[in-house]
C-alpha cells in the first residue's frame, strides 16, 4: 500500500477491544472470524464477554475463511456525512447483511459498488476487504 493511500484514509478505523480483537485480527488477514457459543451453539455478532444469547462463558472463535456470501437484510443511503471522514463517500450505502450460511448473523458494512438504484432488500452481496493502513483491513460488501 502506498503512502499516498494511507494518508487518504481518514475514516474511523475499527477499535480492537478485549471482546472483539479476534474478529478484527481475522479481518486484517482478509478472513471472517465469528464468536460461537459452545453451550447453545449460537453465533454472537457483535461478539462480547460471554454468549449474548444464553450468557454462557464457554465461547470460542471460528474461522469462516474469505468466501463470505450474504443478502441485503436492510440498508440506508446517506447523502450527508453524519461522521467525520465520510465527506468523500457521499452518497454512502450502509447495509445490514444476512450471511447466506448463517442467517442468524447480520453484519453491517458499506456496499462499495452500491447506490440508491441498484441496492434492494434481498440482493446478493459478497464480503471484500479494504486495506486501510499497512496492517489494518476493514470488511466491506460488494454486489455479487
Amino acid at each position, binding site marked *: 500500500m502506498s503512502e499516498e493511500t494511507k494518508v487518504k484514509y481518514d*475514516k*474511523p*478505523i*475499527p*477499535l*480492537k*477491544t478485549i471482546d*472483539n480483537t479476534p474478529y*478484527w485480527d481475522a479481518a486484517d488477514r482478509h478472513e471472517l472470524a465469528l464468536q460461537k457459543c459452545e453451550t447453545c451453539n449460537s453465533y454472537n*455478532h*457483535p461478539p*462480547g464477554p460471554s454468549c*449474548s444469547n444464553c450468557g454462557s462463558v464457554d465461547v470460542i472463535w471460528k474461522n469462516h475463511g474469505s468466501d463470505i456470501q450474504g443478502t441485503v*437484510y*436492510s*440498508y*440506508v*443511503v*446517506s*447523502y*450527508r*456525512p*453524519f*461522521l*467525520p*471522514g*465520510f465527506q468523500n*463517500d457521499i452518497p*454512502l450505502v*450502509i447495509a*445490514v447483511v444476512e450471511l447466506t450460511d448463517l442467517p442468524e448473523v*447480520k*453484519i*453491517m*458494512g*458499506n456496499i462499495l459498488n452500491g447506490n*440508491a438504484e441498484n441496492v434492494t*432488500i434481498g440482493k446478493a452481496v459478497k464480503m471484500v476487504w479494504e486495506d486501510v493502513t499497512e496492517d489494518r483491513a*476493514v470488511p466491506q460488501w460488494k454486489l455479487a
Partner: protein
Amino acid sequence: MNNIRNKYAIVGVGESKRSKNSGVTPLHLALDAARAAIADAGLEAKDIDGFMSYSENDSCTPHQVATYLGVRPGVVKEILGGGSSTELLIADAIGLIETGQAKTVLIYRAMNGRSGMRMGGGGWSTDLLQNAFDGGSFLIPYGAGSPGQWFGLFATRHMHLNGLTQEHLGHVCTSFYEHAQRNPNAFFYGKPLTLEDYMQTAHLSSPFTKHDFCLESDEANAIIVTSTERAKDCKSTPVKIMGMAARQTVSHAHYWKNLDEVASDYVAPELYKAAGISPEDIDVASIYDCFSWVVLRQLEAYGLAPKGEVGDFVAAGNLRLNGKLPTNTAGGMLSEGYTHGMNNVLEIVRQVRHEYAGTNRQVENCEIGICTGWAGPDIAGAMILSK
C-alpha cells in the same frame, strides 16, 4: 400495576420559552419550566419534595433546581437517557410516593438542544463513539453515527415488508405540521407543509428527508406527579394515570440484529393490561416522533392501526384533528419542539384536561389519551391517561 390504577395523577405542566438560542443555561430554563408547572398546579415550591430529571449530560441537576426554587428536597434523582425517560421517571415517582418516601414530585427535561449540545451530532470523537456503546466498532467505521441511519435501517425493511411508502411518511409529517399551524409556540408555526412539497424534498438519509427528522430546540418542560387524593388540593384538573409500562427492551442489546422487533411491541400488552382498556378506547395520542417512521411503527405496535394498514390509516387523515386518532396535536417533535418527548406529554395532559375547550385546538370529547416514549428500537415505555 392494576392496584395503582388511577391512584396517581399529573397535576401540573409547564414550559420555558422555546428558541433556537436561549442565551441562558439549562438551569435557567429548568427553573422557568418548574415555576410554570408549580403555578399551573396551584402549588408552592415548598409543596414539592421530589425532583427528578433526565439528560444526556447536557443539563442541570435536580438538586440545583430545588435549591434555586428555595427548597431542600426529600429525594432527588437524575438519569441518563432520552426518549421514554419521562415515563420511567413517572413510574419511579409513583413508587416513591406509594412507599411514603415522597409526596409530590416534579420531573423536568431542560436542554439547549439547538444552541448547545445537539443530538444530531457534530464534533464527536469517532474513537469515543466506538466505545460509547456496545458494538460501536461495528457501526462507526461504516459511517453509521446517527439515529437517523440506525432507525432508517429499521424503516427501510419495515416499509418494504408492509407496503409503506414515502407518501405515508409524508402524511405523518403534514398531519403534525398542520397541528403546528394552530400552535403559535410551535417552531414551525406559520410554516405549513404540503404533501407536494414533502415529496419534492431530498433524502438526508433514506428513507428520511429533513421533514422526517425531529427538530432541535432550546427549552425546558416540567410536570408534577402526586396522588389523586392529594390532587384535590391543586387548582388544576388532575389527569389520572390509568396505567403504564415504564420501560421495556428488545431481546438483544445489539438491536440491529433483528430489525423486525422493537421494544414498543413488548410495552403494548403490559400497558393495556395495567390500564384495563383496549386500543379502541383511546381518543387522543402523543406518539414519540423523533422520526416520522417511528410513529408508523408505534401505531402498529400499540394496535392503534391494524398491522399492514398503518399506511392507509395515516393517509386517510386519521392523525389530524378530526381524524380517528388526533396525534401530536401541538405539532410533536417534528414541528413543535424537542425535549426528548416531554413536550408531547405536556400536550396530552392539556388535551385530556380539555384545556383548549372553546378554541380550534381541542380534540372534542376526548377522555382517554395514550403517550408513548421511544428511546430507540431497543428501549421504550408508555402510559395511558384519563380525565
